[in-house]
Structures are given as C-alpha cells and as structure tokens.
C-alpha cells in the first residue's frame, strides 16, 4: 500500500483510462452511434489487431519512423550547430538571426507542397519538411542556453586565465545543455507532426498515407488505430529524449528530494 501511495498518479491514471474507455464503449452502444462517425473502442482494438497481424501497420510504421528520425537528426543537428556558432560570434547573431526568425514565421505546413514538388513523393521530401520544423526549437534554446552562464562563473574562469574557447567548452556549453534538451524534446514531438504533414501532402507510404487511405474508405476504426500508434511513437520518442537527458544532464535536480509543500 505504501508503494502505491508514494506514486498516487499511477493508479489514478489507470482508473481514469478505464473509466474513459468504458464510458466511450458504453456511449457508442447506448446511443447506437454509427461506426463511420465514432468507432467503439472494441472496433478500434479489432482494427489494430488486423493491421498489426497483416504486417501492414509495421511496414508503414518504419517508413514514418525513419522520416521522423532522419528529419529530427538533420533539423535538430543543424539547429544546435548554428546555435553554437551564433552563440560564439555575436556578429553572426545580428546578421543571420533576423533571417532565421523570418523563416520561422513561415508556416511549414504552407511550404510543404512546394517541398514535395521539389523533392518528390518519396522519403526525402518528408525528411526535409520534418527537419525545417525540428530546426528552430533547438536553435532558439541553444542560443538562450549559451547565454545562461552566470556572470560570476565567467569572471572566475577569466581570473584563472581561461581563454574564450575554454570558457565556452568548460562553462557555457555544459550550462546550455539543459536548455538544448528542452529544445530537443519539443523538436522530437514536432518531428512526428512534420512527417505526417509531409505524407498528407503527397506520399506512397507511411502512417500518414495509411490514414488518408482509411479515411477515404470510411474506415474510422482503422484511422483511430493508426492514431494510437502515432501517439505511442510520439510518447516513446519523448521518453527516449528524457532518458538521454537524465544521463547527459545528470547534475540537474531530478526532483526526488522534494521540498515539503512544493
């Protein structure tokens, strides 16, 4: 019992889930809601099983997953590198940053069709759309993080004769990491959205492509099953980023010694 009360959110969340699914199933049956409007959870489970057993979901899952990962790596990677360059050379920030912000204000969904025309219906256009979306959160957070180093710390390093590069490597970069991870976490979730948007605009494979197909066939239960897979992918990737963060930014308070009343 003690263990249970230490983490009351776990049983509560499970109860909430059961109540929600049960209520949903009951409502669909009670009001005889047609399956093409809202499918019952049992129908969604059935569609999930068929999709998985036939291997169709699995194949398309890997296509979307690869697009997400590649787009994330390129987008987040270039966001970090440019963020570091901007953080190192203030002149660069003043000359380049306005253009980056201008680019960011462009809705990526709006340029997705152009990218599909330029790069085709295959994976590369999805990777590029995903990368443009994953880029900015990592860039912005890297820049903020590199500025977050306390003045005291810099003065102390200077007093011990540190060079600019040493201050960057030994103080500013590690100080920026928690911020970079905030950016990475936002970027990974946006990357899933980016890949799906790309697939909606034009594609021959992937979970987004499957959703369109099922939608066209009025297979609502199938669409819901794919949505569940997508959100599981998003949750899994988010948890992976969190796990890496805990290892890399190990010195940050993980909150297990809670302040009483906090």
């Amino acid at each position: 019992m003690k263990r249970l009360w230490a983490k009351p959110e776990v049983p509560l969340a499970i109860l909430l889930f059961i109540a929600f699914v049960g209520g949903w199933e009951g409502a669909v049956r009670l009001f005889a809601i047609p399956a093409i409007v809202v499918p019952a959870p049992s129908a969604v489970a059935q569609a999930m099983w068929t999709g998985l057993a036939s291997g169709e979901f699995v194949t398309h899952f890997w296509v979307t997953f690869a697009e997400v990962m590649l787009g994330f790596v390129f987008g987040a990677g270039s966001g970090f590198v440019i963020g570091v360059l901007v953080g190192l050379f203030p002149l660069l920030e003043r000359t380049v940053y306005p253009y980056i912000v201008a680019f960011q204000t462009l809705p990526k969904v709006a340029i997705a069709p152009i990218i599909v025309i330029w790069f085709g219906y295959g994976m590369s256009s999805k990777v590029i759309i995903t990368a443009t979306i994953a880029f900015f959160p990592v860039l912005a957070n890297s820049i903020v993080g590199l500025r977050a180093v306390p003045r005291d710390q810099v003065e102390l390093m200077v007093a011990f004769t540190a060079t600019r590069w040493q201050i960057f490597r030994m103080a500013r970069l590690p100080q920026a990491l928690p911020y970079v991870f905030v950016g990475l976490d936002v970027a990974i979730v946006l990357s899933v959205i980016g890949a799906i948007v790309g697939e909606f605009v034009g594609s021959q494979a992937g979970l987004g492509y499957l959703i369109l197909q099922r939608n066209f066939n009025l297979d609502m239960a199938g669409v819901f099953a794919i949505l569940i897979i997508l959100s599981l992918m998003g949750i899994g990737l988010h948890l992976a980023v969190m796990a890496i963060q805990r290892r890399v930014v190990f010195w940050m308070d993980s909150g297990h010694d809670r302040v009483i009343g906090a």
Partner: protein
Amino acid sequence: MPQPLISTRALNKIYRTQTGEDVVALRDVSLDIAPGAFVTVVGPSGCGKSTLLKILAGILARSSGEVSLAGRPIDGPSRNVGVVFQAPVLLPWRNVLQNVLLPIDIQRLKRADHEGRARALLKLVGLAGFENKYPSELSGGMQQRVGITRALVHDPDLLLMDEPFGALDAMTRESMNLELLRIWEESRKTVMLVTHSIPEAVFLADKVVVMSPRPGRISEIIDVDLPRPRDLGMMVTPRFGAHVAAIRAHFQSLGALDA
C-alpha cells in the same frame, strides 16, 4: 622594505551605469602589500572592496592610476593568483575533485601531477571523502571550502579572497580562519582578504585596510601587532579588543557602522 608584491598608486575606478551616470567606486587608492603579508580589507557595503579585488585579479580594468603585481603592471589575470569569491561558484557538472582541479585544466597542466596536492588540500579543509560528490550534494559551507581549495591548488603566490567566509556559520568560520592562517604560515603566500567582520579582519591580518564609502577610498591602514601563531583565545585579549574598538570608532565617526 623589499619590493612590494602588490602596489597601487592613485588608483581610480569609475563605473558608467546603464542610465549614463558615473559611479566613483574607488578614488585615489594607494596601497603597498609586501610579499608574504596577510592584509584584510574592511569597509561598509558598496565602498568598493570587491572592485579593488577584481582590479588586482586582473578581471576589471582600472579607470586611471597604476597597479602592479611583482613590479609589473596588471593588464590581465595572472596564473600566479588564486581567487575566491563570496559565492562558491562551482561547476555543477564537475565533482569536488574536478572542481578543485579547474585551474590545472585551464593552465593545461597534467591532472595526475596535481591530484595528490588537491586531495591533501581537501583533507586540510575537512573534505576528505567528498572528492567524488557533486556540488548539489554539499552544504553551502562545504561548497565554499571547495572554492578555497580550488584557489590554492596551483600553489599561487597571491591569494585574493572576497568575503570567503560570509556564508559560513560562526563556528565553521572560526575553524576556517584558523585553517587559513595555518596554510598561510606554512606556505608564506601573500593574502588579501575582504571581510565584513571587524573581529575577523583583526584576527587574521598583519594590516587592516579600512575603507570609507562613496567614493571608496582608504581612510586608514592599521598594523596589527598581535603575536603569531594566533589562536582563538586571543580574541578576548585587551589588545585585540583595542584594535576592534578603534576600527569601530572609526566607522562610527564616518556615520557608517557596519559590524
């Protein structure tokens, strides 16, 4: 008198604030510190103590006047100086030993050659066994002791300390005072220490530099003729009391009672 290790002549520092006003932080400061001396600086808050220390550490530019270290003008930080700020300023991703070895890393020396000394110093300040702990696992006083060890690890000739014991409780503070005196007596370093506490200033020093506020200037330099080595018992002697009373009276006459 031998050549002073630190010498300032007609030193002035004027800060330009964001509103465009000028704040005179130091005015006409002339001071000589002999090699091996223990000098403390007392003065009310805002009188320019930290400013003076930062100029001597080579991390803040003076506005006019001359400052020299071992006969050479100070135009930047020196490897031969160890600094301690009021806050410990440890790097949270380095453990205690790695934090202490920071000056070694910065000077691109071999860690292995200095690890023994770092461990010995940590033992001296009562932190043996904490080498692998991270700053977040230490109390404020322990963190400050790590900061002091870091300032000593590269064996500098000059130690500049800005209220290093301000965050410590009275008991730890007294034992740190004794520890610092022992390190100083063994190594014959030159120490300049800023403090808010008049008794602490008298207890530690050969010379107490008394500063007056706005604009910060040296109003008096008091020679402390208490015998060495010193022990806490001296703090109740009449001679000690007389020095403390003289400095207090001095501040009172300035209308700035501080401690």
